[in-house]
């Protein structure tokens, strides 16, 4: 019987992330997570418009990856207990997901096995056996239960929107902390750019700093930063 299945490219953020790691044949740990952070964010960035809820989940994971990457580049970056937990949790979830997803492939193969068919026990002739609990009222109540049983379609996005807000806060606070960690200001990146763009540029710059390709200078405390390199475009100040 043909069924048309509309399959999204990725089942969710973990699926995308795992795919990136597996493509590079990496093990799941903070090193591999840092290594695929850029690509993950670039992929999320290039995704077509998604329902609010799903976007939020993809972006929330981007925040954790960003944190992992920042820490790998800046070992003195302060990480809170909660964030440490987020990172450990992500690694754990990813490892579990990998096992479950692999097992799912085995199940798919099993669905091609000869199946164990149902028997066909003949039922006794029906006889009318009323049940005192079946009344107009109990049936009306059961109908109400059916109505309530349909999942609440509208409820979900509201919760997710809140997650986006906290993500922005998180990125904000992270960039502040990174700034102090490497004595670098990111005013340039807090302009009116797209969030994804900020993250990508930010990561790119951290990478460049780490590799010694650019040198950051700061004239005075809390002052603007001069990036000494021809390799990247000169920061614009507002």
């Amino acid at each position, binding site marked *: 019987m043909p069924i048309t299945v509309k399959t999204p490219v990725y089942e969710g953020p973990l699926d995308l992330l795992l795919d990136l790691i597996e493509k590079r044949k990496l093990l799941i740990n903070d090193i591999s997570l840092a290594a695929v952070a850029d690509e993950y964010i670039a992929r999320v960035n290039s995704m077509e418009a998604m329902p609010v809820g799903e976007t939020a989940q993809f972006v929330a994971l981007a925040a954790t990856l960003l944190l992992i990457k920042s820490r790998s580049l800046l070992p003195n970056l302060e990480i809170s207990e909660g964030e440490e937990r987020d990172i450990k949790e992500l690694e754990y979830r990813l490892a579990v997901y990998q096992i479950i997803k692999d097992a799912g492939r085995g199940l798919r193969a099993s669905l091609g096995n000869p199946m164990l068919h149902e028997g066909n026990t003949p039922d006794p002739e029906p006889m009318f056996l009323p049940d005192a609990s079946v009344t*107009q009222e109990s049936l009306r109540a059961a109908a109400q239960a059916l109505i309530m049983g349909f999942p609440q379609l509208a409820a979900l996005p509201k919760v997710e929107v809140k997650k986006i807000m906290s993500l922005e806060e998180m990125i904000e606070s992270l960039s502040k902390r990174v700034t102090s960690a490497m004595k670098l200001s990111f005013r340039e990146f807090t302009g009116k750019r797209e969030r994804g763009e900020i993250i990508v540029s930010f990561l790119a710059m951290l990478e460049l700093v780490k590799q010694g390709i650019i040198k950051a200078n700061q004239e005075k405390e809390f002052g603007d930063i001069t990036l000494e390199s021809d390799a990247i475009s000169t920061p614009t100040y507002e």
Partner: protein
Amino acid sequence: MNEQQLALQIEALLFALGRPVARKELASKLGVEMPELELGLRELMRATAGRGIVCVDDGTEVELRAGPQAAEMIERVRKEELSREVGRAGLEALSAILYRGPLTRSEIDFIRGVNSSQTLRTLMMRGLVRKVPNPKDQRQWLYEPTTELMAELGVREREDLPDYDAVREKLTQLEAAYRMKEQEPATHDDPAAQ
């Protein structure tokens, strides 16, 4: 096929068909000659003797039945089953059929969000619902309330049920909204199996 293999196939086929089957039909369905079938049958009779499911042979037709040692127990359990209340699942299926019916089994599954085949079977055995061929698709069954149920409920027609129009309308809306949202394959309609 050796005798054991043939006995296995006969046993499974009788189980799947759930009715007495003539030797000729068995042989043709299994693609074997009569003498071979007899050997397989003899092996099956031997293997099931003294078990919970036995093979019964009246000379022409053969059939699987529950073993005689269990007859009393089964009789008792059947009685218990039918004197029990229909429970939440039963009430839900009944109310779907009454307020939204007549419905196919997969439509009832959709409204309830769970598979309802066992529940419907019990309701049918108790004479509360019955199935009739779907005029739009002869391969499907539609479930509808029995007249005895309507009489027991004290309603002449379904429209007399409490809040009939409002409930029917609401269920219809929810179904439509949910079917649209559904991205996964929905249930496929059962081809008049059972």
